[in-house]
């Protein structure tokens, strides 16, 4: 029973080269930040960084599940905007009502996606594009196109502004917990393996007798729920429901997933690497802010986007190089 499965780093790297690449990039960037900027490693920067990025981490992980089946969910940004408004309306009843309420709203959008994809057989790109527009419109309708202030008297804002045990922000604690649960689901349950198998070959999965429809529906419900949670964090952290937020979040999420080495065609992916991918992209912004703070060079927000795009390109290029050595599914007789 012993040893055969002891963690072998070399084997891990050779089998997961893309995750390896993303870890290295993260380490390098942190090291760069620590050396160059005085307050980079300070408690304030770390907490605010994690607090802000918890939203992106959670929608990226939801997106990761969808992409592993070979699908895509374009609606996450709009759904997060919608649910942030829902959370703001529910905030007087406290976080214990607002959080489940907003997540449920997100799951409802996910249910629409799941219905379109699984039952109506509409391609995910189209189905979730429709939901994206619908949720965006819906957010504007229920808010009257205004930001909706939360009830500061209730415990709702604790989620986005206070720390658990005075160590970590509640947002990152909640997100961390969900991420761990989802990691277990992916790695240790039939449902998770079915998600991967679908992306690797949907017909084959059906013929193997796997519950393909159930798993496909699950990923869209999950992604909707994750977007709902992101909406709660958004409303709680900024003290208001934000119907106009969330534009382009789906693309950031897809970028994080891809940087994490998950195949866009499905069948291969990892929760941890996606989290690292999200952190990596967030960190680029963080570092650019510090750079601006130093005052030697100043990047406008527009230039920051350009730089982020360039960085994304570099990471993906690096991955492709690392991957060139391995060849899955391309064996010659």
């Amino acid at each position, binding site marked *: *029973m012993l040893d055969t*499965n002891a963690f072998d780093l070399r084997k891990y790297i050779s*089998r997961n080269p893309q995750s390896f690449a993303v870890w290295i990039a993260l380490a390098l960037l942190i090291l760069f930040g620590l050396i160059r900027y005085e307050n980079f490693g300070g408690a304030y920067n770390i907490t605010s960084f994690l607090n802000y990025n918890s939203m992106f981490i959670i929608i990226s992980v939801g997106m990761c599940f969808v992409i592993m089946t070979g699908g895509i969910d374009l609606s996450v940004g709009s759904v997060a905007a919608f649910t942030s408004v829902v959370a703001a309306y529910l905030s007087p009843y406290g976080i214990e009502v607002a959080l489940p309420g907003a997540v449920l709203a997100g799951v409802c959008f996910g249910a629409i996606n799941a219905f379109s994809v699984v039952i109506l057989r509409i391609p995910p790109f189209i189905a979730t594009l429709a939901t994206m527009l619908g949720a965006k419109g819906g957010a504007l309708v229920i808010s009257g196109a205004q930001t909706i202030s939360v009830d500061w008297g209730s415990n709702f804002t604790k989620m986005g502004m206070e720390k658990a045990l005075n160590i970590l922000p509640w947002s990152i604690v909640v997100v961390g917990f969900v991420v761990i649960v989802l990691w*277990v689901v992916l*790695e*240790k*349950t*039939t449902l998770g*393996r*079915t998600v*991967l*198998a679908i*992306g*690797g*070959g949907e*017909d*084959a*999965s*059906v*013929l*193997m*007798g*796997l*519950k393909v429809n159930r798993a496909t529906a699950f990923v869209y419900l999950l992604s909707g729920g994750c977007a709902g949670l992101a909406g709660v964090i958004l409303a709680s952290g900024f003290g208001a429901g934000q119907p106009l937020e969330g534009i382009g979040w789906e693309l950031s999420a897809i970028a994080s997933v891809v940087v994490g080495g998950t*195949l866009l065609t499905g*069948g*291969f992916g990892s929760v941890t690497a996606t989290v690292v991918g999200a952190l990596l992209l967030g960190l680029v912004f963080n570092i650019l802010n510090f750079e601006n703070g130093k005052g030697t060079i100043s990047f406008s927000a527009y230039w920051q986007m350009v730089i982020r795009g360039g960085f994304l390109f570099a990471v993906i290029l690096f991955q492709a190089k690392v991957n060139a050595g391995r*060849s*899955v*599914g*391309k*064996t*010659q*007789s």
Partner: protein
Amino acid sequence: MTQLLSMSGINKAFAGISALSDASLEIEPGEVHALIGQNGAGKSTLIKILTGVYRRDNGVVHFNGLDSTISSPREAQEARIATIYQELNLVPLRSVTENVMMGYEPKFFGVFIDWQSAHKRTEEILARFGIDIDVRAPLGSYSTAIQQLVAIARAVSLNARLVIMDEPTSSLDTSEVEVLFGVVKGLKEAGVSVLYVSHFLDELFEICDRVTTMRDGKTVDCRNIAGTSKLELIAGMLGRDVGEIEQSGMTEFNGGAKGLEKGEILITAEGVSTGPRLNDFDMTLHRGEIIGLGGLLGAGRTEVARAIFGVDRLVKGRLDVKGGTGNLDTPAAAITSGVGFLTEDRKAEGIIPDMSVRENLTLALLPKLKKFGQIDRAREKELVDHFIKALGIKTSDMEQPIRELSGGNQQKVLLARWLAINPDVLILDEPTRGVDVGAKREIQSIIREAVENGVGVILISSEFEEIVEGADRIIVLNEGRIVSELENPGITEEVLVRALAQTSEQTA
């Protein structure tokens, strides 16, 4: 003895076209039962009805004494019917363990997969097949043969009462086939029934008890295999007389017999090397000639084809096509200078499943069909029509998606794709693999006709009959090197087998 499975009066139509009419099948417990028939005879459809992939229009299915209500592959598995489909239906990106255990993983608390035991169980199951591999690696990193055995291992490990094998040996070599036969015999001893579908009739005599023959969607015959001859089986599949077939030989080829004058030289290869799998290859191909490449799996036959077609770069040597100097370094250049390459892997490299017969047929031809920058549709239709008639392609019309055609007809479309460019050289890699007897003969006569019209053909085939009767010369390869050359007439299967055997001894 009561039947394990009895299907009778099964009808099934797709979009108004009848695929099965009054088909039946009966299998006894602990029996190895062969199901044969040409492609398109309805074997696959019948199996898919049994396993719940398709729904029957009418008819009765009894399994294990009960009226069967199986309506999905999952339910079939729960009824303990395991199926190994002809096209590999596994997930190459996922690990071997996942592919074997998927849906039946050992678990802690009924929820969390116990990977340790899963890997161990998989290793044990594979050990029964004599396979010792890293089960944690992605399945796609192993050869097709191993993947096939893994598919079989999965099916067998499900404790089935009936195991259905659809062409299980098409990608296995001789020793692997032996392993498979051992497993089939073991299943039989354990009282499990096996439904065995194969185009390799010789195999059936080795392991099967009874054989059911299908033709045009009907069950035409069911008999004990003992006391039956191969010719009788072929005659049954084709619906022809035994005597008629005996006269015309087993294949439609007449390699070397015609004594044709050798035409101009089409290809000269001198000392061609593309890497460890092909070294110092010499060959001269003339017009109106078929050169066969002999050798076992991995001997370098496909590599020769890839080199000539400009897929693999030459490391060393010279390769002249049609007197032109220099190598063709891309497939596009090869096609332009009149070289066609019918690949071995029809599904992955040949057809585009969702495109129509017409589109598949004219893909390689599009540049030539352009008139004033537009595709000349009328001319295209005319051409497609011509080939559908000339090659006897069975399709409802030219706009039918190619995936709906049987394997033999898909292969004919691919052959037509290359014939349509008026090639000088045709490279055919396993042109009749997975194709039924009738279509095989038709394809062979199409090839022969092309050769008589001056095409030079390089033929790769694992079927000795085909290569022995077909080729004017056979170049025998082993481990990427030429080991001998045989001239027709005068080659017999024994001669070829001896040449192959000697080479393996030399290197062993």
